[in-house]
């Protein structure tokens, strides 16, 4: 209802603006109606340009003040801090350049606005100036490129090793499954052709003739031991999906017919993260919003929203169909002991198909 009201108001504002503009146009003296900017226009528009600069700065400051707390949640993976420092360095650079160039652009538009009798400076070229603003970006970008590539190589180089835990993320319209490699540390072969074996109990299409697969464990909730490298192997059974884990600064597409991979080491357990002051503040803020929204729901006879508890998330980040917006899986990072206790309770593939 409020939405319709808002819309109506906006619509009426639009109409009145239109009308005002029309009246404004009709009230102009016809003799001065060349429709080319005159001195008065130049003066007003030049000043507005300067005002626009103020608008840009205010918008920037306001946004950071109001919404700064939603930016980049605390990193929960080992490479997360490398990622974040590269991000903040790039951001600092962007802000510096943005502040200076927008100031120059709008200030010049104001300062050199047309005035009667003024003549512009005939100034067509200056090789030195141009060399300067070619070389400065070259040096800055060379630095950024080298730093970026160094970090990229560190993150993306996945080396198989005995210490790491191998987990398969399996995507389908519209949910996620995870497969653990079991005691042998090797995922069994799998293909969509095996999905219909065992009356559909073969959830991710494991090849039952491959002995490596028999001790594999398939689950719907992702548990990760803290401090241990996790090597993810991604698969999809139908369309493209993307496994996006923003808290771990991790993302990789899941491609039908191909296995992709990404690796990271979680460093903060879910419990510890729930005690983080920023997370506590965020949860509090969200629950306040949810309580507010619940009031309206309850008034309409609906159920109130459940209070929010923080959890790490795996989201789908590649358009995959109608329920793309709700394709998620909970990630729980826990101590190695808790993880071991949990995985021991799960059924292996051999047990499932018996």
């Amino acid at each position, binding site marked *: 209802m409020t939405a319709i009201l808002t819309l109506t108001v906006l619509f009426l504002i639009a109409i009145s603006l239109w009308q005002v503009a029309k009246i404004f146009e009709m009230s102009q003296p016809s003799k001065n109606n060349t429709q080319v900017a005159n001195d008065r*226009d130049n003066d007003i528009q030049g000043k507005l340009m300067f005002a626009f600069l103020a608008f840009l700065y205010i918008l920037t400051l306001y946004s950071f003040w109001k919404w700064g707390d*939603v930016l980049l949640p605390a990193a929960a993976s080992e490479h997360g801090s490398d990622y974040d420092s590269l991000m903040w360095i790039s951001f600092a650079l962007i802000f510096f350049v943005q502040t200076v160039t927008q100031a120059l652009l709008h200030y010049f538009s104001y300062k050199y606005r047309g005035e009667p009798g003024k003549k512009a400076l005939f100034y067509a070229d200056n090789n030195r100036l141009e060399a300067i603003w070619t070389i400065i970006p070259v040096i800055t*970008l060379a630095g950024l490129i080298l730093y970026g590539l160094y970090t990229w190589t560190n993150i993306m180089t996945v080396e198989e090793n005995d210490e790491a835990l191998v987990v398969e993320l399996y995507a389908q319209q519209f949910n996620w499954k995870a497969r653990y490699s079991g005691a042998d540390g090797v995922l069994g072969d799998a293909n969509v052709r095996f999905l219909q074996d065992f009356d559909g109990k073969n959830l991710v299409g494991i090849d039952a003739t491959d002995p490596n697969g028999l001790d594999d464990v398939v689950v719907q909730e992702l548990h990760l031991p803290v401090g241990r490298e996790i090597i993810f192997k991604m698969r999809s059974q139908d369309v493209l999906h993307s496994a996006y884990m923003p808290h771990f600064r991790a993302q990789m597409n899941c491609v039908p017919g191909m296995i992709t991979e990404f690796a990271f080491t979680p460093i903060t357990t879910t419990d510890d993260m729930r005690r983080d002051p920023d997370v506590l503040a965020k949860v509090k803020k969200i629950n306040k919003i949810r309580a507010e929204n619940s009031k309206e729901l309850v008034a309409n006879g609906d159920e109130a929203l459940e209070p929010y508890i923080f959890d790490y998330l795996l989201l789908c980040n590649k*358009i995959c169909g109608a329920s793309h917006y709700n394709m998620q899986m909970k990630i729980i990072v826990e101590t190695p002991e808790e993880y071991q206790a949990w995985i021991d309770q799960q059924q292996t593939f051999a047990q499932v198909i018996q």
Partner: protein
Amino acid sequence: MTKYIFSQDHKMISKQYLITGLFMGIIGIAMSLMFRLQLAWPEKSFGIFEVLLGKWAPDGVMDPNVYLALVTIHGTIMVFFVLTAGLSGTFSNLLIPLQIGARDMASGLLNMISFWLFFLSSVIMIASLFVEAGPAAAGWTIYPPLSALPQAQPGSGLGMTLWLVSMAIFVASSLLGSLNYIVTVINLRVKGMSMSRLPLTIWAFFVTAIIGVVSFPVLLSAALLLIMDRSFGTSFFLSDIFIQGEVLHYQGGSPVLYEHLFWFLGHPEVYIVLLPALGITSEIIATNSRKPIFGYRAMVASIIAIAFLSTIVWGHHMFISGMNPFLGSVFTFTTLLIAIPSAVKAFNYITTLWKGNLQLNPAMLFSIGLVSTFISGGLTGIILGDSTLDINVHDTYFVVAHFHLVMGISALYGLFAGVYHWFPKMFGRMMNKNLGYFHFWVTAVCAYGVFFPMHFIGMAGLPRRYYTNTAFPYFDDIADINVVITIFALIAGAAQLVFLYNFIHSIFYGKKAEQNPWKSNTMEWTAPVEHMHGNWPGAIPEVHRWAYDYSKPGQEEDWVSQTVPLKEGEEELQH
């Protein structure tokens, strides 16, 4: 009939492009307002949805499939139909012959066919909105297998077939147009119009046409292969698929191959959209600053450098597609290089304003606005072009904010600037400047109001193309940002009505234009206001100087037309 409809005259074809483009623009923008309503007030009932979407919005609540269809068609229409055909088609056609001193395009017939193919593809695209299962809904990049399998979503049936057919025709139209532009610029320049005297508009259109010819055919091949996969059972892009309880027969294809083919066009396409806008802006900023464009040679070099680099950076859309990370490194390197010519252009624009005598006409405001959004949007490209940083912001709203500012809004500003500036040339009348000012300021404030806060949603980790973010309580604290964005978007949409009114009203009732209202140096203003076939009565005037002799010392006026011979003892700048 041959005058207004099947005309071979470049000026008429240009108007046809503009009006078709604007019409498509109205549809594209209206769609964005609809999905913005859904995003701000998710799953609320709106009467307007019931009217416009009918059965796809039961009780006025938008269906998720329709949401995806709206974002898909919004993207397709804005990128291809408005900002490629509407912008480049309009101004290349209008300005290439007039600014180089030609009587018409090299081939008027091909030019006419090019427009009518574009028109046909627009009609097919619009028709696809009315098919039973809805239009294409796989995102404007239509990645298979989602786009290939009708089982995957309703929009991948007949709607997708029509999308592909429409785009194939669009590519044909674009190729005919581009070839014509290239040939015309190379062959039909009037005596004295050397390449180094060309206005920057023509350089931009010329280079744009070359990128188009190089990259558009690859989109056609991607579309054809996808049609084969869809209809003839081939496996170019598909492999190992199980859907709706059934194992499909496809073996050995790869969606990643499609991504390569698509972005081989898709990325240059960004510059096909942007370069003409930058060319238009160069011309308008110089004219209205009453100053030569600063660093003409550097501007031309930047256009060429951007064009070249644009064809070797497509992989930055695919850092996390599963391709080899080493390839990612290469594409990071080439991508960040583009920042250099872009920075040169931005600095040169700013220096052109310095110590000028700025005539702040609406076209000039839009041009300055373009430089502003080009900088704001371009800078975040440093984050997205960096493979490392892309990991966490890829496909989030951060990307949406970035590309809308840098190529969406910037190119739209270029289109508006061009319309305000060359309206007298196209229609022989002036547009109302006060409505123009109003249009600019509301649009400028709203454009930042929409896309600046959007960066925050992206950095918070919200993926794009989500029908609603209410499925994640984690994102509840960004709901108010979505409302702010939508309100700015609605106001911006309303402001475009003022432009439309001004445009249509001025065609019929605008003040009659003088021959050269902006006191510009370029050749189109030496042609009479009244349109005639062949552009100039009698001989075409010869060219004696470059296009930017504004406020040259020793001249009485602050402008000298390109057709005025050098005075005795006057030196021509060596360009």
